[in-house]
């Protein structure tokens, strides 16, 4: 009886495999096709210069100290009072957050604490973050601005005020070419 079962499944498995030839491949051919990114995905930050009020709350709340405040005109760091003192007068109000992606854990606290509407710093569905050098992971605020993105993407981001909502579960095999 046991042997009959083995023989039965031995033959059945052959036809199961043969049937699978007509199944659609599950592969997503990455550079050509891209997976559909679910809503609420926490990818790279986007920093908006027009709404940022330089409150530096994102810098304080960041659990891994990935966010530094920069002075956009000179590119100098402006985290501490001593660093701010070296800047030209009135520079405190022009500081903007820059992110070290080597440290960032994509927790989204900075977006949550941001007091402005729309959020000045927000995590969007940007997931191609590889760089050639380690230095390249330290992004000053200019790098993170929506102007650096392709136009359609930037408009989409600017239209959506924030994405910290209950994320919809829609991680599927659907492809978007």
């Amino acid at each position, binding site marked *: 009886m046991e042997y009959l079962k083995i023989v039965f499944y031995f033959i059945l*498995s*052959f036809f199961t*495999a*043969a049937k*699978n*030839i*007509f199944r659609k491949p599950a592969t997503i*051919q990455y550079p050509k096709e891209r997976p559909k990114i679910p809503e609420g995905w926490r990818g790279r930050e986007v920093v908006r210069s027009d709404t940022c009020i330089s409150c530096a709350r994102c810098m304080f709340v960041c659990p891994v100290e990935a966010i530094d405040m920069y002075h956009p005109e000179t590119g100098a760091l402006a985290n501490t009072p001593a660093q701010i003192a070296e800047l030209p007068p009135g520079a405190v109000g022009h500081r903007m957050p820059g992110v070290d992606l080597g440290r960032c854990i994509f927790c989204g606290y900075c977006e949550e604490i941001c007091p402005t509407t729309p959020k000045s710093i927000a995590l969007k569905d940007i997931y191609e973050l590889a760089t050639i050098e380690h230095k390249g992971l330290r992004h000053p605020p200019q790098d993170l601005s929506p102007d650096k993105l392709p136009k359609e993407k930037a408009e989409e981001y600017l239209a959506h005020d924030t994405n910290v909502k209950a994320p919809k579960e829609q991680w599927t095999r659907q492809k978007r070419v």
Partner: protein
Amino acid sequence: MAVFDITIIIGAVLLTLFGGLFAAYIGLLERKLIGRIHSRYGPTMVGPYGLLQTVADAIKFMQKDFFVPKRADKLLFIVSPVFLTFLSFLLLSYLPWGNFSFIVSQYDLLIILGIVALSPVIILVAAWASNSKYSSIGGLRAVTQILAYEGVLFLSILPLVFISGSFSLAEIISAQKNYWFMFSEPFAFLLFLFAVIAITERQPFDLPEAESELVQGWLTEFGGPFFAVILLGQYIMLYVASFLLAALFLGGWGGAFGWIGFAVKVFAGVLVFIISRATYFRMRLDQLLDFSWKFLVPLGFANFLLSLLIVYTSL
């Protein structure tokens, strides 16, 4: 004595071309089909639908160095893969091609079995010559496996030979006029399938080149051109296996469709080998030998005696 006239030479060139094309495109088909069975695409990038992938692979193999390991036996190392492929082509020359055959013989099936029986010797030589532990383990495995399954192959063919009363392929095919041997000799068919997969070292019985244990088995030290040549030989062996399957058990070119039907049968045989490669898992060596000596060989003898009884009572 063979006369080397122009038809023989043209035929030889066409045969070699056929061997290469068969190896290339059945290899591609195999990769595509197994990819689909695994829900992948298989090769798609080189050429339209990846049609030039195997050509690119062949060019890559040929560009590589003729690398011979330091402690290897140089002469045997170079000669053995060439000789293996030569054996495969020799097998091809005994198979009839329509009404044309390179070497016409009354005993072509017997000669084919004889040539197949030569291959473990050369595999052992190749494994010995490469002087590496993986090669030697793989070579010994190959030899034990092929020796264990050759008996099964002979036992599966014996009843057919007794029923048709001849060792020639054409007569065995003409003996299947009324019914295929696949239906009148189902156990022989089963034995033949197992034996052929084991002798060609294809997937459920690919212990001699078990990748997860032995790198590439007895092929480990053969790189570049040597490997390409051995692979060519293995695909030709696959062709010979499907040819024999179609000729001995599926009625050959006897039916209404003639040679086209025969080509379809050969292709179906190739498909069976490819899908069984994608489906079944590798056995352990002791299970493999147990399966042969304790199950298939007694079954072969019983089947042989039974079919003898039936043949002689019906006479």
